[in-house]
């Protein structure tokens, strides 16, 4: 068997290609909104205005430009966070089929964030009798929704790790079944909440509905900040877990015998993966499969070591999600599909492909 492993030269080439592609794609994305197109001079002026170096574009055009820019940055941050979260989970569970959506972590973040939306949508204050603290919380809604999403994601991550692992080993079928069960439970709870909201508060119901399919539209600078803070936290953690995850590949006991603090690594990975996924989900809603598809594509390109896999997954995730959205805007001239729907259409068949492929690649020593 020849081992498809990327050389350091291939790593340099890939990094350069991605490094050129990402700013190019960001520029392409900023030049074209759903209905408004900007020229290169407007792009530079709009960007200058955001940085306080130029006068704003005329009338509503600066506002639209900033919305498109926010959308672009959110797409990059969400793609990077979800892909990084997926790669981390694949490493710690030693399984290429793990991802925040399949394990239910995205759904957990979704449930937490939905409860957060309800809280700031009025129900929190009403339910607990208008406590001043919650009224204050309403003013900081994106942050609160992120925090409740993070709590939900962490809860599910630790539930999966506890139920899916027996004596330090993770059974893959158990892991996937736990994910199915958690996804089903949370989908049921969310449907019940949705039904209740439709009867009681149409506005909040609509917000939850739009959010549950994932959306990159109408994002604020605060939300850009939240997503990028999650992605930055994940990126800062990578040096502390990448080599460790390489040693995890041959088993947890193997890693521990070589000197890895396995408990600390697992905790760090689960918290980071939950944080990255929940920041993404709280801002952009549930976008499935990015966390599964992107690390696998990077692996298929020959980058198997987590030292290269993790950073390349982050850049690749940004390229993937933004690329799909930009392609839709340029080719279809409108946003026909929400990003969650688009990713499911790509990710679902890819997941099946991986399952079929892994059937013939089960190797044990």
């Amino acid at each position, binding site marked *: 068997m020849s081992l498809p492993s990327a050389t350091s030269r291939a790593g340099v080439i890939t990094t350069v290609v991605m490094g050129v592609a990402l700013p190019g794609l960001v520029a392409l994305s900023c030049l074209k909104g759903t209905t408004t197109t900007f020229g290169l001079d407007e792009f530079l002026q709009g960007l200058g205005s955001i940085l306080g170096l130029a006068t704003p574009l005329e009338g509503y055009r600066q506002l639209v430009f900033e919305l498109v820019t926010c959308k672009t940055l959110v797409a990059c941050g969400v793609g990077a966070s979800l892909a990084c979260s997926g790669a981390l989970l694949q490493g710690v569970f030693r399984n290429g089929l793990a991802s925040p959506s399949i394990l239910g972590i995205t759904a957990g973040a979704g449930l937490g964030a939905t409860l957060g939306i309800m809280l700031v949508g009025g129900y929190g204050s009403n339910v607990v009798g208008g406590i001043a603290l919650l009224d204050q919380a309403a003013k900081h809604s994106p942050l609160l929704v992120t925090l409740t999403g993070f709590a939900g994601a962490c809860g599910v991550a630790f539930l999966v790790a506890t139920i899916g692992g027996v004596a330090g*080993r993770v059974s893959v079928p158990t892991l996937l079944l736990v994910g199915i069960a958690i996804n089903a439970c949370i989908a049921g709870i969310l449907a019940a909440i949705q039904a209740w909201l439709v009867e009681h508060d149409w506005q909040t119901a609509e917000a939850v509905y739009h959010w549950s399919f994932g959306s990159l539209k109408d994002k604020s600078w605060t939300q850009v900040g939240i997503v990028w803070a999650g992605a930055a936290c994940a990126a800062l953690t990578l040096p502390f877990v990448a080599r460790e995850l390489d040693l995890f590949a041959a088993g947890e006991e193997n890693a521990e015998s*070589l*000197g890895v603090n396995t408990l600390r690594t697992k905790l760090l990975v689960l918290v980071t993966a939950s944080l990255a996924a929940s920041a993404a989900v709280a801002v952009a809603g549930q976008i499935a499969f990015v966390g599964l598809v992107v690390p696998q594509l990077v692996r298929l390109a020959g980058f198997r070591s987590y030292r290269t896999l993790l950073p390349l997954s982050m850049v690749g995730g940004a390229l993937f999600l933004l690329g799909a959205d930009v392609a839709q805007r340029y080719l279809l001239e409108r946003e026909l599909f929400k990003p969650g729907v688009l990713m499911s259409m790509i990710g679902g068949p890819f997941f099946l492909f991986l399952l079929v492929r892994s059937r013939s690649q089960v190797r044990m020593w």
Partner: protein
Amino acid sequence: MLIEGRGLAHTYPGGVEALADLDLSISTGELICILGPNGAGKSTLLKALAGLLPITAGSIAWRGEPMISWSPKQRARRLAFVPQSLMALPEVTVGTFVAQGRYAHQGVFTRVTPEDRQAVEQALDQADLADLADRAMPDLSGGQRQRCLVARALAQQSELLLIDEPTNALDPEHQIAIFQLIESLTHEERAVAGVTHDLNLASQFASRIVLLNDGRKVADGTVNEVLERSVLEPVYGPGLRYSSWKIEEGGAGDSGERPIVLPWRSNS
């Protein structure tokens, strides 16, 4: 004294007592073979010494210093554990796999040092793997993979190697090669403790034999003291035949005669 375990006990969840009140000490230059029937607690003892399984009673000291507060890295710099096999086959080259043994010597942001490279090259040479450094691990035979595991442990540059059934599933030629490699380490100020089921390899190579049964130590002595009917029969039953082989050079044992113990079909 390199390592000393006193009153070691380990009880698995569910109440199965795998080790009970076991004392074991290992000194530099020793090659200790740990023998015993299946379920005797051999692998549990090795993992307990390696810090991979918590002991439920007793204490382990390294040169007289308690090991309980050691970090996994501190432990891995002093003792290396070679498992029987790995849970999954790593899809890396032999060189990369052996270099993983240097993890405990590296910091989070430190790059590969000349010492790391030298240790890996030396380990590859010692395990006769230098020509295979660029080969993929999945391409190797069972014997080559076993040598890779030993080489990775050598790259750790630890003073003690704990090896679990190193000749499992190997042909006779490779069994001898692995034991010769292990034996050569004891000449370099290191000690080795290995679990094996092969009484005759233990007879040829061990400087000391520890015999376990039901989680307890039933014998601890030289090859000729332990590999004899009165000691082995209560543990392995009557299905063994005993003989001896005269060897010209004494080697690590205490006489020129080495016992041979063969499993033999029963007459009934």
